[in-house]
């Protein structure tokens, strides 16, 4: 699995100049995806998950931002790509499932128009008619029976669940190598969200695409991902195989996240994590979790990303595994 990663992110930094000063949003994020691997990136709201994903898609490019580090896709350096270069990558080799189907589809164009355009940009040389046929085919494949009617509809005429399925179809129709899914379906109710993930699992399996699933819900990670990265305030604080992470979380933040997951069985209410993600313009020096960490002590400086057991890494000076 670790043989030849298909997507690697190395020491990624994102700085945004703002009115209040420079925000150092991503502080050395590193992660990788093996071919066909399903990996989750979890963390509280505002910890930088979407920023990481958007950089990998080349969609983080405001004039007030500076990005450092390396992102490679099958060996190609993505950060150096120009507009034209990106067009050969996006939608074809790496694509994205957006969070909110109500906001991610253009309200004044039909679903068909948007799906057909996505197909044709990903596979130039496809005629409109061919692309339309492929779009209908792809919709039928995800059990949308009246595909033609759906293609002729505008997003607001369809249900949120249906639109979400369309977004997933769009992301996979050109058989990309990597799919980034930023909280897919989290704008919808829980059952639809589950269906969404099940569908993504089935489709990506079929295509052999690797998935980077972004979520702040550890609950959905267990059934979906093979490996997990836990992110806090712009850094990866823990990485492990899913089963291992749930069994023996090592970082105090991961432990707190797990304690915050509502359980069907078990004792007591979920425990929310006290405090909040620190201010990016003036982050704590050293371990950024320190202000909220129940185990913080003088020895907590700037901990390295250690690997106490193979495949399980943690950024904390102490080892709390039980």
């Amino acid at each position, binding site marked *: 699995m670790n043989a030849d990663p298909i997507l690697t992110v190395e020491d990624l930094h994102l700085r945004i100049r703002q009115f209040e000063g420079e925000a150092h949003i991503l502080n050395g994020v590193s992660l990788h995806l093996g071919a066909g691997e399903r990996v989750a990136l979890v963390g509280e709201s505002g910890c930088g998950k979407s920023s990481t994903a*958007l950089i990998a*898609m*080349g*969609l983080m490019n405001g*004039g007030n931002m500076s990005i450092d580090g390396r992102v490679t896709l099958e060996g190609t350096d993505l950060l150096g790509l120009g*507009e034209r270069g*990106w*067009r*050969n*990558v*996006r*939608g*074809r080799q790496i*694509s*994205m499932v*957006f969070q*909110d189907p109500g*906001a*991610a*589809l*253009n*309200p*004044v*164009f039909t679903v068909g128009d948007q799906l057909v*355009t*996505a197909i044709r*940009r*990903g596979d130039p040389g496809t005629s409109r008619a061919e692309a339309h046929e492929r779009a209908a085919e792809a919709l039928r494949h995800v059990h949308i029976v009246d595909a033609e009617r759906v293609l002729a509809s*505008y997003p*607001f*005429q369809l249900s949120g669940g249906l639109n979400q399925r369309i*977004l997933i179809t*769009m992301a996979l129709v050109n058989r990309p190598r990597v799919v980034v899914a930023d909280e897919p379906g989290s704008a919808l109710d829980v059952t639809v969200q589950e269906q969404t993930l099940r569908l993504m699992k089935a489709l990506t399996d079929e295509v052999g695409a690797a998935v980077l699933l972004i979520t702040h819900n550890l609950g959905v990670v267990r059934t979906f991902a093979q490996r997990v990265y836990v992110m806090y305030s712009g850094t990866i604080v823990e990485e492990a195989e899913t089963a291992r992470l749930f069994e023996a979380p090592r970082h105090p933040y991961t432990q707190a996240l797990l304690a915050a997951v509502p359980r069907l069985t078990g004792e007591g209410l979920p425990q929310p994590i006290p405090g909040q993600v620190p201010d990016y313009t003036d982050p704590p020096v050293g371990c950024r979790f320190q202000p909220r960490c129940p185990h913080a002590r003088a020895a907590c400086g700037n901990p390295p990303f250690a690997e106490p057991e193979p495949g399980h890494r943690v950024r904390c000076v102490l080892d709390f595994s039980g």
Partner: protein
Amino acid sequence: MNLWRYFLGRLLGSLLVLFGVSILIFGVARLIPGDPARIALGPMATAEQVEMMRERLRLNEPVVVQYGEFVRDLFRGDLGISLYTKRPVTSDILSTLPATFELVIAAALIMTLIGVPLGIVAARYRNSGVDRAANLAALLGVVTPSFVWAIFLMLVFAFALDIFPIAGRVSRGAELPPTVTGLLILDSAIAGLWPTVFDALRHIVLPAFALAMGGLGTAARLTRANMSEVYDRQYIQLARAFAYTEREIAYKYALRPAMVPTLTILGLDFAIMLGNAFLVEMVFAWPGMARYGVEVIIRKDLNGIVGTVLVISAFFLIINMIIDIVVAYMNPRIRYRDQ
């Protein structure tokens, strides 16, 4: 289909509004102080003469009856006799309105065809030099009244540089086409009189620009603002994530949603131009409705006032209807609202 039903609904609404306006203006025209009959006949007329005039104008009947007769005549295309020109109001209006229309349409075209692309470019290159320059130009357009533009353009391009004619709609001695639409440029083109088309175009450039500048500025700023907002939407990010080209995003996937709110305002600007046209027409001696409109009000020419206001209202409503239909075409939410 759906667009048709929408159109019929809007048409019915517009007719109702026109009906309301006609009642209002009919009443208001009669509230302006002064006896129209006395004003029309002058101070030398005898009381009997004035009384006879009042009879002829049916001014002694109850207003409701007057209005009923007015509506009956209206359906025959008869707006009564103008006390100012002593000719039928209908023919007065028909002889001056087309020139005003031509001017306003030309200005609307300039406003849209220059203002909207300027806004698109500014939005596409947000915060660049182009954006700032466009913003400044637009602001200048908005804050300067159209008659100031008229004088300025005339001084620079007609007097100083002598590129365009100073006044009028066409040169003296130009061969004139038979009237088809009343729009001189269009009629000349239909008749194949290309020298006249060219001459009329040269005449309309300055007044049309003077009239368009305000709307042009609004169009550019509105387009830029709405496009910028659309650019921040997730569906634009999705378009980029699926390798749509920046050009097709700008001119199609961002433009159409951005034009929905923009067009409604532009429609209003278009209609406002009809009011501003009066001043521009004065400056450029444009043979439009300006003089007539002013004179009928000063002289309390009842039929003239009512006729002029009705025609302007109808124009306003027609423009609005066209805009609404274009917006409905662009915004499927409106088209499919009642499904």
